[in-house]
């Protein structure tokens, strides 16, 4: 009988654990950390506590007091739900996770400022001769690769020869790249080298372009911002590069750390690069491991990592009050928007064709929809202030962002007024407006399936629109899977009148790739001579002058806002959790903490 009880009590205990976990798995974490960490005092947040009342503004910088230890291992959680690809080469990688890892051993030769403009502080400096349409890239010192070999002008040329190579299968051999004189001939196998790129001396190269625009200062126009170790890669044919150890296991690099070990798709270990031209990093090692998004919050709480490469905003609640973590934030280089279909893309002529008779070609109707959308409400209720209403198609990170632009506040009365004015009136009294001719009017919205909140948000917006008398139905009757969504939007599916999507802008804010006549990604298909003129002004030679460019940007932003063919909805905030043993950390693009300067104040991340 005694045995009997033992067995049962074990079973019972097991069930209790199950029950306990089901109840409080997510939120039961706060109590524990308080007691765990009281003895580890001395951390202060420079810009944290006092501003914490304003939830939407996370600090960009944290400073922790305490003596820095010698060396140490920085532990980084790479938040990903699938393994990383492991292509450690700037010309070849395509995966954002790979680029997160690459950042620690970067081959980047240019430094950029808060506006992502190339500065003189990097390994190389850039001089552009606008009249001659040339750029000269010059190494600013005697630098060495991570294996000790000196960096030469040949290493600056080699990446161009990889991208332009006939066997190159990546996305970077593009329109921009063909702007280099001789790139096409080299790609087609008619020349052995790119004629437009010449070695000036051991430290500098000169590149001849077909045209230069302000984009060149962002690393555009075909200019390439990375060097590659020719002495290592030369012997490997370009078509074999992707599978080679030089790319996957032992890349020779320029950055603060160098690759030491890789477990395919799972984790990497980097060690300090003693040859780093900005000085040997203070931290000895960096370990980067894949963590599923489902458990990153718990991993941070238990001190498994010092940093996370990203953090799911939907789980913001579970870390915002942790004692061992400072939650930093910065604006993302992206915006969400509602676009209206106003034409078609002519695939043979490769131009967007605006259709005056399209259903949504009515500025007041589009503005009314924008006014009727409660973006502010959603930002507050669903995103806890981590998203805010967007007023412009340029995210606030850039100095070209026009903060004075009004955009579209939530104002249903104004929306109704505009609709009345435009002639959309409820003729049959069912609460839904008919069109100008008194016929039934229904708009079809395409929206992407993603997280569980997406559906709720779309339904909320549909209710908003119904309140002002607009009937909005979902294309296909439900949210659309990512691939299918872009297929439909890009093919100008007649079932789509408007669509909700988002763009990552990248670091070059030029909108030409998204809104010009020839841009395939100009999904609204709106074109006008005026728009073309405004876009040209942004990238013109005149605009090499920052002030003029800034003015051109503002004019374009106003025009886009007035015409409302693409209405920005949200700007997003990126959440960056940092363990309190990291001494100083700044995530502001204008003032980033450099890798070699990171210091730790304890042997292991604080729990």
């Amino acid at each position: 009988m005694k045995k009997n009880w033992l067995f049962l009590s074990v079973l019972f205990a097991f069930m209790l654990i199950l029950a306990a976990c089901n109840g409080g798995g997510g939120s039961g974490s706060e109590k524990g950390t308080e007691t765990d960490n009281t003895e580890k005092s001395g951390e202060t947040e420079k810009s944290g506590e006092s501003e914490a009342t304003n939830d939407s503004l996370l600090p960009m910088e944290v400073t922790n007091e305490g003596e820095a230890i010698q060396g140490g291992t920085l532990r980084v959680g790479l938040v990903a739900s699938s393994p990383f690809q492991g292509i450690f080469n700037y010309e070849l990688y395509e995966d954002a996770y790979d680029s997160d890892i690459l950042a620690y051993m970067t081959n980047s030769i240019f430094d950029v400022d808060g506006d992502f403009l190339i500065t003189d502080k990097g390994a190389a400096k850039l001089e552009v001769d606008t009249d001659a349409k040339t750029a000269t890239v010059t190494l600013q010192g005697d630098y060495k690769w991570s294996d000790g070999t000196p960096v030469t002008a040949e290493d600056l040329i080699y990446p161009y020869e990889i991208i332009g190579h006939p066997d190159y299968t990546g996305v970077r051999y593009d329109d921009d790249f063909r702007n280099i004189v001789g790139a096409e001939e080299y790609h087609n196998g008619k020349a052995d080298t790119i004629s437009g790129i010449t070695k000036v001396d051991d430290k500098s190269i000169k590149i001849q372009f077909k045209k230069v625009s302000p984009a060149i200062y962002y690393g555009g126009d075909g200019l390439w911002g990375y060097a590659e170790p020719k002495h290592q890669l030369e012997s490997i044919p370009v078509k074999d590069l992707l599978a080679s150890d030089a790319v996957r296991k032992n890349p020779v690099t320029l950055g603060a750390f160098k690759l030491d070990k890789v477990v395919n798709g799972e984790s990497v270990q980097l060690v300090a690069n003693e040859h780093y031209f900005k000085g040997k990093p203070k931290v000895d090692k960096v370990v980067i491991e894949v963590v599923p998004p489902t458990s990153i919050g718990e991993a941070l709480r238990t001190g498994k990592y010092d940093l996370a490469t990203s953090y799911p905003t939907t789980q913001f609640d579970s870390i915002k009050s942790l004692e061992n973590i400072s939650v930093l934030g910065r604006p993302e280089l992206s915006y969400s928007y509602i676009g209206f279909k106003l034409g078609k893309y002519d695939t043979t002529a490769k131009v967007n064709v605006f259709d005056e008779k399209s259903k949504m070609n009515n500025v007041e109707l589009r503005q009314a929809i924008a006014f009727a959308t409660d973006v502010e409400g959603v930002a507050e209720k669903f995103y806890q202030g981590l998203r805010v209403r967007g007023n412009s198609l340029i995210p606030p990170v850039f100095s070209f962002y026009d903060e004075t632009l009004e955009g579209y506040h939530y104002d249903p009365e104004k929306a109704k007024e505009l609709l009345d004015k435009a002639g959309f009136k409820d003729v049959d009294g069912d609460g839904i407006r008919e069109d100008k001719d008194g016929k039934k009017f229904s708009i079809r919205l395409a929206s992407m399936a993603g997280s569980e909140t997406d559906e709720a948000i779309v339904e909320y917006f549909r209710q908003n629109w119904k309140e002002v008398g607009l009937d909005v139905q979902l294309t296909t009757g439900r949210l659309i899977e990512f691939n299918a969504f872009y297929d439909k939007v890009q093919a100008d599916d007649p079932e789509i009148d408007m669509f909700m999507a988002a763009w990552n802008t990248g670091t070059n804010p030029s909108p030409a790739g998204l809104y010009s006549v020839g841009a395939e990604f100009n999904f609204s298909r709106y074109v006008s001579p005026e728009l073309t003129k405004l876009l040209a002004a942004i990238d013109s030679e005149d605009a090499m002058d920052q002030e003029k460019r800034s003015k051109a940007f503002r004019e374009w932003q106003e025009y886009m806002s007035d015409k409302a063919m693409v209405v920005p909805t949200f700007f997003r905030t990126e959440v960056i959790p940092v363990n309190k043993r990291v001494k100083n950390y700044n995530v502001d693009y204008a003032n980033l903490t450099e890798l070699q300067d990171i210091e730790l104040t304890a042997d292991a991340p604080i729990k």
Partner: protein
Amino acid sequence: MWKTIVRRVILMIPQMFVLSLIIFVLAKQMPGDPFTGLITPETDPARIEELRIQAGYYDPWYIQYYHWVINAFQGDFGQSYTYKLAVSTLIGERALNTFWLALLSTILVYLIAIPLGMIAGRKQDTLYDKSITLYSFISYAIPTFVLGLIFLYIFGYRLMWFPTSGTVDVGVEPGTLEYYWNRLYHLILPAMTYAILATTTIIQYLRSEIIDAKTQDYVKTARSKGVPMKIIYRRHIFRNSLLPIAAFLGFTITGLLGGSIFIETIFGFPGMGQLFIHSVTSRDYSVITALVMLYGFLALLGSLLSDIIMSIVDPRIRID
């Protein structure tokens, strides 16, 4: 028996052929392609179009299929578009991870299920039996991802007994004893999760077989001869009761090789299940096709294995 085995193997060829045709055509019907995900304002649509042409996406499907079959016969299943690796290398890597996980899981399943099933059958209707049945119900009803997360939370993050993700720590030197121990250490928690969920069927089968066997004539005979119950259970009942479980073995092994998307995702374990889902969402056709072919082959092989195992353990059954 050999004749049958050979015949079954030969029959697999047309089966695999039909499967390859179906999956090849269906995979291409999915909206989007591997390049859809590459869209950013900085990518050049013309370049993407060029890559599509290079990859042969605009060829008619039968031409694409023809190329695929010819290459497949030479052991070349193409390149993964997302991982930029030969499909065989990629799958090989993942299959190895999954294999070790599957092996440990299978061992654990039998280690847990056989004693529990025997106790339940032997002590029918006692408190033991009832608690084991209760356990079976719970483990049967609980979804994989719930148990996975609970285990990860308790044993990984709260008690910190086990590592929480991956297959091995990056710091240990491959080839050393420490390395193998580290790999095993990473396997325990996911394998445990899988094992607990998979025990139900075996426990219940074993239980009912034993209860059945207790009333059989050979048991009565043995008892009347004065053979102790312990020995009757070990020598007679247990052996006979294991028959239906042996029948599952083939399926169990090949089934586990398919991987479990939930367990792999929760424990950040790069295995086959994750690879499959990822290849579907990123439209990595060559990987999808190769994996479905592999799964199809494993299913056919599993049923053949089960038949062979049955004929070995039960001499009454002969497959001709």
